[in-house]
């Protein structure tokens, strides 16, 4: 068996893959957070709950309506995005003129209420969600077995990240969005419907979280609290990357996922805290974050 640094190659590759998969979720979630924060100046604490809602929507669509995975992958983000738009219109939009901390506190309450409700009705235990038949099984790569579904998660999340980046950097809508981030009053004066833009942005961010949730459903089990611990890690990822850049959020997400995976191989005791340690170090050396601009 091949060994690298005294670690069997297979174990190393296995953890690297786990890291890449976690990194995919970190990237998707921190991308959504960054998009929302960029325009709304709100840190969306409910992001973890929206991720959980995505997974639950897929599960409920399957059990109640018999909707398959592929359709759920499109429907769940739409449904969660619609709900998020409703919340933004009726409640969150009242907080824009206040300190951003109120947005954080509001979405924190929202997350507690959503997660509490699901725990009340569905219990705290996880429910299995089978991967689609097309993606079950594994391929032998020679040095390791790659479960096809896990490969798909990495590819799908990468594709969505790039698509969102293109949407924001290369389309007219994205240009409006970036302009509104710089100076909302001026953009409004040019006749762009900024409040609508804000609603769409929040829905987009929540939809991204829900998409990540559907992707996660077959890997982790679907449970009401699946998002609550994840969101804190994603906060750390966002602090490390700096919220200034979309690309920064994506790259940092994958990077920290892989670092976390490698820590599991070399020093498993620290794997839970390695991202937080990195955050502390980055804050000491470069307070604005790796890709952030000094505020």
């Amino acid at each position, binding site marked *: 068996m091949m060994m690298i640094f005294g670690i069997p190659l297979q174990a190393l590759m296995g953890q690297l893959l786990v890291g890449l998969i976690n990194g995919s979720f970190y990237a998707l979630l921190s991308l959504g957070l960054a998009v929302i924060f960029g325009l709304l100046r709100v*840190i969306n604490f409910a992001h973890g709950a929206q991720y959980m809602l995505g997974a639950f929507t897929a599960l409920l669509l399957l059990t109640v309506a018999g909707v398959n995975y592929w359709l759920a992958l499109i429907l769940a983000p739409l449904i969660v995005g619609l709900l998020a738009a409703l919340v933004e219109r009726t*409640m969150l939009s*009242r*907080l824009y003129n*206040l*300190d*951003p*901390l*109120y947005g*954080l*506190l*509001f979405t*924190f*309450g*929202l*997350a*507690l*209420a*959503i*997660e*509490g*409700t699901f*725990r*009340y009705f569905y219990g705290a235990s996880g429910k299995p969600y089978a991967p689609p038949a097309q993606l079950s099984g594994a391929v032998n790569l020679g040095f390791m077995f790659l479960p096809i579904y896990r490969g798909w998660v990495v590819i799908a999340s990468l594709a969505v990240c790039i698509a969102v980046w293109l949407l924001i950097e290369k389309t007219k809508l994205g240009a409006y969005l970036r302009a509104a981030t710089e100076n909302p009053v001026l953009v409004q004066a040019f006749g762009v419907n900024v409040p609508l833009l804000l609603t769409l942005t929040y829905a987009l961010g929540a939809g991204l979280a829900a998409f990540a949730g559907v992707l996660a459903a077959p890997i982790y089990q679907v449970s009401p609290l699946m998002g609550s*611990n994840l969101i*804190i*890690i994603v*906060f*750390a990822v*966002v*602090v490390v990357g700096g919220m200034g850049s979309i690309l920064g959020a994506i790259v940092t997400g994958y990077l920290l996922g892989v670092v976390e995976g490698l820590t599991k191989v070399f020093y498993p*005791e620290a794997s*839970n*805290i390695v991202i*937080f*340690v990195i*955050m*502390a170090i980055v*804050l*000491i050396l470069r*307070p604005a974050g790796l890709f952030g601009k000094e*505020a």
Partner: protein
Amino acid sequence: MVGKSEPIPSEAIAVHPKAGQIQLGLVALALVAALFAPQFLYPIFVMKLLAFALFASAFNLLLGYTGLLSFGHATFFGGAAYFTAHAVKVWGWPPEAGILLGVAGAALLGLVMGAIAIRRQGIYFAMITLALSQMFFFFCIQASFTHGEDGIQSVPRGHLFGLIDLHEPMNMYYFVLAVFVIGLLIIWRFVNSPFGMILKSIRENEQRAISLGYSVARYKLGAFVMSAALAGLAGGLKALIFQFATLTDVTWQMSGEVILMTLLGGIGTLAGPIVGAGLVVTLQNYLATSDFPVTIITGLVFMTCVLLFRRGLVGEFFASKIGRRLGFRSGS
């Protein structure tokens, strides 16, 4: 900025000439009520309430008077509970020494977390404290002295100064009440000191405070450590009251709970966190027997407070006509 005094309706209201005496009377009334409370209520319940009221007051010192929202105060509360429980149970320290160790440990944790977190402001500050306290949570799961999921159980209360048996419920109650009153006096003195005034100026306008030559970072760190130490005092007390220290007290949910207490009662008022803690603890007590999850209510109360009354209950009262006639002012 959160905690910055919200504008108060402009029409002038004359402060009642005896406002000062009435305020003093209200405080005296509250003290008398606290002295006799265990005659009417379950002592453990009142003690729990006092411990959380002190915790929330310590938290408010930071949010209400410095404008820093920490999402990691469970680290100091729960961490101190572990330190106190360990010192008293394993090393056989007397209770007062155990609590002091808890306070010192919490202050040290506060120094480290504060030094890292004050490098960023506002929303980042909140996220960083949250992440660092999650790191401490994972540390507590793995460290051997915390006994992981079991926690430190059957912690002896011991004899205060070697004389007073704290296993006697009434002795314990008056000990807790005394510590609570001392803690509040410290906070009151701190807030009204020159140091506290500078903190308020940082809260209202950080740039101007810098331009006036104040080393804002050092004042913020000072406030953070002070708040952490007092939260530790509350945590140490809690470990002795319930005679155990568990992971629950270091979770992010606990950090959220103390924010809720302060927000509900009134950020930047001395009485607010106490009222908020009273309401939240009572609610939890009431819901503990039903299977309805507290988090749903907690979440909804959070949303309502943020959307409809950001001053909190006490803050709204202070801003009302009666409150202003009695000379109450929040944020000062």
